């Protein structure tokens, strides 16, 4: 068993991730599923950002005159990846919400079971 506080960030991430996962698979409302997906997504962001953190580090912005002065910076690479991921995430969210609006127009409901029920007789 590794040291408890050192792994605590991963466990928070997992709890959040599983909350989102549960909303996605257990709830029938499509908007709720998108919200669940967002929770899941943000937990992944937190995972990456928390891995990039270095003890005693500061934000990776170089201030004039401190170059080579032994300042510790947090890892900038996960930040870049997550910036991209946030934007891609909003793109998928927008697409999902647009699909929901169309489903509402076509079926008159956004509850999964009612949609299945309408599909059955055909």
């Amino acid at each position: 068993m590794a040291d408890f506080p050192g792994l605590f960030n991963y466990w928070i991430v997992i709890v959040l991730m599983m909350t989102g996962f549960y909303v996605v698979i257990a709830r029938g409302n499509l908007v709720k599923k998108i919200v669940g997906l967002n929770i899941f997504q943000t937990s992944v962001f937190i995972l990456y950002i928390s891995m990039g953190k270095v003890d005693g580090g500061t934000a990776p912005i170089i201030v004039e005159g401190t170059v080579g002065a032994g300042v510790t910076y947090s890892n900038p690479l996960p930040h870049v990846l997550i910036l991209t991921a946030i934007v891609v995430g909003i793109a998928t969210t927008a697409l999902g919400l647009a699909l929901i609006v169309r489903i509402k127009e076509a079926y008159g409901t956004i509850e999964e079971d009612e949609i299945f029920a309408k599909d059955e007789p055909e």
Partner: protein
Amino acid sequence: MGIVRLDNLLAVVMLSGIYSLISAGLFVTLDAVDVAFTEASVGGGIATVLMLATLALTGDTEKQGKGKLQFMPLAVVAVTGALLIYGTLDMPSFGDAMAPIHQHVAPRYIAEAPQTTGIPNIVTSVLASYRGYDTMGELAVIFTAGIGVMLILGTGRRRDD
């Protein structure tokens, strides 16, 4: 979490906006200021507005009934979570400067980025310079999504006329 239990979707969307803002604050404390800006504006702002617009078109109450915790999904979630926690036992601990993630290209970015790109913000220089192709791919994704949204919503409106 309230989001799981609530039936009123308006409240759910508001809570998810608050959740985005809280996570933006968390990113600031984790030294990721650029990510925090983006999360606050995109996650807390644009996503909330988009969801509110969707709710205005689709109605804001979730169907009652299956308010109880469902057993099957809960079991799947519990097993997955347990496996993931087992997986973290080998992970480097929080804030460890010797973790593998800090040993590969990151030191080079930090050491060389100001000289090679002339931008003091390392995140910006990596995003726009070292990983410019990633960012271009990201733009392609947004563009595709934008076209997709316009196609999905546009055709429906034309058929109604």
